[in-house]
């Protein structure tokens, strides 16, 4: 008999784990709340640091889940523990009795309009990293070409007042990547990146930074304090250039806000029903931060990806694979004696 | 010239076909006469121009030197050795040396002996232009032949000598042709890409002597000939039968000569005539003051475009950098190409190797610096603080020490050097003071190299004040860059400026420092500024031989390859520098030493970054080998 495994969330973590689990011979049921699989990856155009196409990456992931039962536009209405197995009622009316559950609910983007001073939703030229990716995907370019474009790092990250004191990990590299792509699209435009610390920690990330610098992108160390609209409808951006300890202003046509990662609301909904604990930052707490990253405090319930904190795509995929291994071990120890 | 064309037509040869020729003129001499006249006028104007551009002071210096017996003797010696015998090339590449001297010295002797012959047998034709003195000795064999009035078949010794010299020259030409095909056989990896004028002159030069052989071969029956021309004459007779072929060859010979002279000012061969002038200038102690005029112009035209600097230049480890070599630099200077010359001037490492290896002794680094001066000397900066600091530190002179140690800016990035020098000073019981332990003024050499001489002089002035007021008798320097300028530009009367390699050598010789010999095999890298810059090659080697087994680098002493991180370059990028450092290290590793030793903070850092064996500073390795009972 094949054991049922329920995977909640059809983003990279869910897809990668489902693939691994189905290859191990489990009966995998995947529930995704959105219309299409892929999570945020499905909305992205190119990925740092090598600017590979997000679509190609996703397509290759999707090709591995042929044996997985995927339910899209499906919420987990309720879930509870019955003896050793989990009983989940899905919004499409199906009830799943699963021997193990993998939560891969990922993250929600920080709502950039919460940073009122940046004027997202108020000024026409202010957009988010996700908006820009969408524009890239659609191959849209502005006419007339913008003359000056700014990127604000750490929007809703490292910001206690915005409710997220932590770093979202991917925004710096994303900003630098998007800045390069923007510069390529509008070679005559001035491109500015407003950063606090440039966290280019991964392999090739520093190269990306150097490439951006060489292409003439200006990095200004300082958080944007406020944005206003000029009489001509352009954006007047104020920040401090902390390296010269002086306030600075610049008029831009576009301002791209690097919205950070917040815990997924849908994930919380599942967590609340099983009394799973979250840490102060709102992300789920693993059983052990080093040794049992994929395990929750509840036997049979596992985590993968950004539901336990901001992660890059490779990190997420690694977690998904290790979660699959943990689930396999759990099933073998508990159900096949 | 018109006079030449119309005169002497009355003298007719008694023999049939050549009756219509005057006995000391023939139309074929015209190309030669035009050529030689052109070159003589060109030379005269050029000389006046160069002398005009010299400063009054320099002209006086030159004049004085000409009458100073010592310099006059040196002038003669240098001109003979450098221009004719090419002893400098002989020393480094014998085959190449032979080639050059064969052509230069052989040709020179041909001309001299030719004139002696005429002087002996037809002295009238040396007496004036109307007698053809300009061309007669050159075409002597022809005129003997057509004019039975001349004594023929006289002086068989000369026939032999002239043929021998011709063979000598031809052997050189043969080698030159071979060099074009396979330069590496003569020890040259890269050769200069010739310009159009160079090609014209070159092919003329190649043709001149074979044509002369042919021409003289045709006339050898009557005009006499030696072991070369006489047999050739027999062969010609056997094949052609009559003498009608001889005139075109003489024409060809004359045309080649004429063309060669006309092409000369536009080609590399101008060096043949300019080099003696350069020798006079150099021996008179003149310096480059302007990047294109006066002394520089003499250097520019003295460049023989031989291309020895191509292999010398450390940048040329990458082929793309060949274009920055001195030979092309001189060519662009000659063509007044300001953009290119500026680019090359700024790229150069100023390691001085091209100058050291140049057979003509063209000091192209000095011209590069002069170009940099035109660009950078006008930059306005504020160095008023230097004077204030010198004033302040002079108020409290660093007293006591007879030795004043100046580490220099760069040594502060290599604390090993400073620590080791201090250890040695202490171990040998020296009374010293550290001039720039906490802060110090730059020696000025980097500014000087960047073409900011005026600024450099301000740092020199401030440092001089501090040094003079310190009461020291010896200024000990650990950085060769500083050493060079301290020696050349500072006036520190009564104070001995010494590099730590020299200092340690003398300490050991005087028995003040005892070192023990280890079994380790080491190689020594000659820093540019220390070796080629200050001529210090022996002292460090003396010391190193005493403490270890000294191996050889494939290029060392004045052929040492710059480490690439010279302060001389302004625009060379990091990647190119790294490549040069690699090539420097690979030369050092020729005999697989266990350690590399150098005596310059820049070289130390550069070589360390590329070497796979431990790299030590000179003082550091001496420290390691101080005999135990003497160690602090």
């Amino acid at each position, binding site marked *: 008999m094949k054991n049922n495994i329920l995977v909640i969330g059809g983003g990279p973590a869910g897809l990668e784990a489902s693939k691994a689990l189905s290859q191990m011979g489990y009966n995998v049921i995947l529930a995704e709340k959105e219309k299409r699989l892929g999570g945020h990856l499905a909305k992205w155009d190119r990925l740092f640091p090598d600017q590979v196409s997000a679509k190609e990456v996703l397509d290759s992931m999707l090709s591995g889940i042929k044996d997985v039962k995927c339910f899209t536009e499906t919420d987990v209405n309720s879930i509870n523990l019955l003896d050793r197995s989990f009983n989940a009622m899905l919004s499409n009316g199906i009830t799943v009795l699963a021997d193990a559950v993998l939560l891969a609910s990922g993250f929600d983007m920080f709502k950039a309009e919460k940073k009122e001073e940046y004027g997202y939703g108020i000024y026409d030229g202010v957009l988010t990293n996700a908006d820009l990716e969408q524009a890239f995907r659609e191959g849209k370019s502005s006419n007339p070409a913008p003359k000056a474009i700014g990127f604000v790092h750490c929007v809703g990250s490292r910001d206690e007042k915005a409710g997220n004191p932590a770093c979202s990990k991917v925004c710096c590299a994303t900003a630098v990547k998007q800045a390069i792509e923007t510069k390529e699209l509008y070679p005559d435009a001035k491109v500015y990146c407003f950063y606090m610390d440039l966290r280019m920690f991964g392999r090739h990330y520093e190269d990306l930074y150097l490439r951006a610098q060489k292409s003439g992108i200006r990095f200004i160390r300082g958080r944007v304090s406020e944005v206003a609209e000029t009489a001509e409808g352009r954006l007047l951006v104020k920040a401090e250039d902390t390296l010269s300890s002086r306030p600075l*202003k610049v008029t831009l046509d576009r301002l791209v806000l690097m919205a950070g990662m917040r815990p997924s609301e849908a994930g919380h909904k599942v967590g609340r029903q099983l009394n799973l604990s979250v840490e102060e930052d709102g992300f789920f707490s693993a059983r052990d931060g080093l040794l049992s990253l994929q395990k929750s405090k509840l036997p049979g319930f596992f985590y993968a990806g950004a539901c336990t904190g901001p992660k890059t795509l490779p990190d997420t995929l690694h977690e998904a694979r290790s979660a699959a291994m943990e689930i396999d071990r759990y099933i073998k120890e508990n159900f096949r004696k | 010239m018109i006079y030449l064309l119309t005169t002497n037509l009355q003298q007719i040869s008694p023999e049939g076909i050549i009756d219509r020729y005057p006995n000391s003129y023939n139309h074929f001499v015209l190309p030669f006469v035009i050529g030689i006249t052109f070159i003589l006028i060109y030379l005269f104007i050029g000389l006046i121009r160069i002398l005009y551009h010299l400063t009054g002071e320099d002209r006086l210096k030159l004049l004085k030197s000409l009458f100073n017996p010592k310099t006059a003797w040196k002038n003669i010696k240098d001109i003979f050795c450098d221009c004719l015998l090419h002893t400098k090339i002989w020393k480094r590449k014998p085959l190449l040396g032979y080639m050059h001297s064969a052509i230069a010295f052989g040709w020179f002797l041909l001309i001299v002996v030719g004139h002696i012959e005429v002087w002996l047998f037809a002295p009238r034709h040396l007496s004036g232009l109307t007698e053809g003195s300009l061309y007669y000795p050159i075409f002597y064999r022809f005129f003997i032949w057509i004019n039975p009035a001349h004594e023929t078949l006289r002086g068989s010794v000369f026939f032999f000598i002239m043929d021998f010299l011709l063979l000598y020259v031809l052997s050189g030409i043969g080698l030159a042709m071979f060099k074009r095909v396979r330069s590496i056989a003569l020890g040259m990896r890269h050769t200069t890409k010739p310009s159009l004028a160079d090609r014209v002159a070159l092919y003329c030069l190649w043709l001149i002597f074979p044509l002369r052989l042919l021409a003289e071969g045709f006339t050898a029956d009557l005009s006499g000939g030696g072991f070369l021309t006489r047999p050739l004459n027999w062969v010609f007779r056997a094949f052609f039968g009559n003498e009608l072929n001889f005139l075109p060859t003489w024409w060809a010979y004359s045309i080649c000569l004429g063309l060669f002279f006309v092409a000369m000012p536009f080609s590399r061969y101008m060096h043949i005539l300019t080099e003696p002038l350069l020798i006079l200038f150099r021996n008179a102690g003149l310096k480059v003051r302007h990047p294109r005029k006066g002394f520089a112009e003499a250097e520019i035209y003295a460049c023989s475009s031989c291309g020895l600097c191509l292999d010398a230049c450390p940048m040329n480890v990458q082929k793309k950098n060949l274009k920055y070599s001195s030979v092309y630099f001189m060519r662009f200077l000659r063509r007044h190409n300001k953009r290119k010359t500026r680019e090359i001037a700024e790229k150069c490492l100023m390691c001085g190797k091209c100058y050291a290896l140049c057979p003509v002794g063209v000091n192209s680094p000095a011209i590069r610096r002069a170009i940099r001066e035109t660009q950078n000397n006008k930059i306005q900066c504020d160095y008023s603080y230097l004077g204030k600091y010198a004033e302040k530190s002079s108020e409290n002179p660093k007293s006591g020490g007879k030795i004043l140690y100046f580490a220099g800016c*760069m040594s502060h990035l290599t604390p090993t050097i400073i620590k080791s020098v201090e250890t040695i000073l202490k171990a040998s019981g020296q009374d010293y003071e550290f001039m720039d332990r906490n802060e110090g003024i730059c020696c000025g050499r980097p500014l000087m190299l*960047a073409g900011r001489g005026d600024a450099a002089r301000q740092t020199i002035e401030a440092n001089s004040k501090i040094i003079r007021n310190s009461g020291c008798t010896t200024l000990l320097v650990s950085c060769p860059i500083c050493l060079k300028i301290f020696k050349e530009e500072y006036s520190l009367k009564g104070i001995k400026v010494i590099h730590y390699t020299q200092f340690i050598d003398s300490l050991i010789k005087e028995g003040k420092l005892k070192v023990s010999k280890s079994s380790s095999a080491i190689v020594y890298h000659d820093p540019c500024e220390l070796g080629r810059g200050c001529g210090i090659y022996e002292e460090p080697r003396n010391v190193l031989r005493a403490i270890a087994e000294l191996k050889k680098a494939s290029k060392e002493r004045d052929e040492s390859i710059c480490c690439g991180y010279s302060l001389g370059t302004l625009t060379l990028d990091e990647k190119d520098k790294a490549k040069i450092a690699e090539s420097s290290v690979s030369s050092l590793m020729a005999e697989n030493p266990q350690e590399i030793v150098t005596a310059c903070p820049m070289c130390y850092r550069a070589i360390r970054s590329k070497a796979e064996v431990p790299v030590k500073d000179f003082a550091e390795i001496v420290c390691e080998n101080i005999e135990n009972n003497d160690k602090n």
Partner: protein
Amino acid sequence: MIDFGFGVSPSSRINLDSADKEKFNELAIAEPDVLKCMACGSCSASCTAAAFEDTSLRRAILSLQNGLGDDASKLLSHCMLCGKCTMVCPRGINTRHLILSIQKIYSL
């Protein structure tokens, strides 16, 4: 005009809109390394002249990016071109040529 004993003080704010981009572009062509600075400060920390006067290549580059050419010239006017900054720069910036280029382009 009345002297009140006080008046409008000049703004210390950097205005990137009015920063001279032409000269900076000229500089970036003469020495593209100017774009590579990551503001680590190694140059200023090792600077020989900085022991005496306010000298900082790092801040000079920043001033140029902010269109403050005079500030940059001032920060480099004491430089002795000793080259220590070239040696310590982790990005391999040709600092001496950069300094010379700045001095040439921004002095005119």
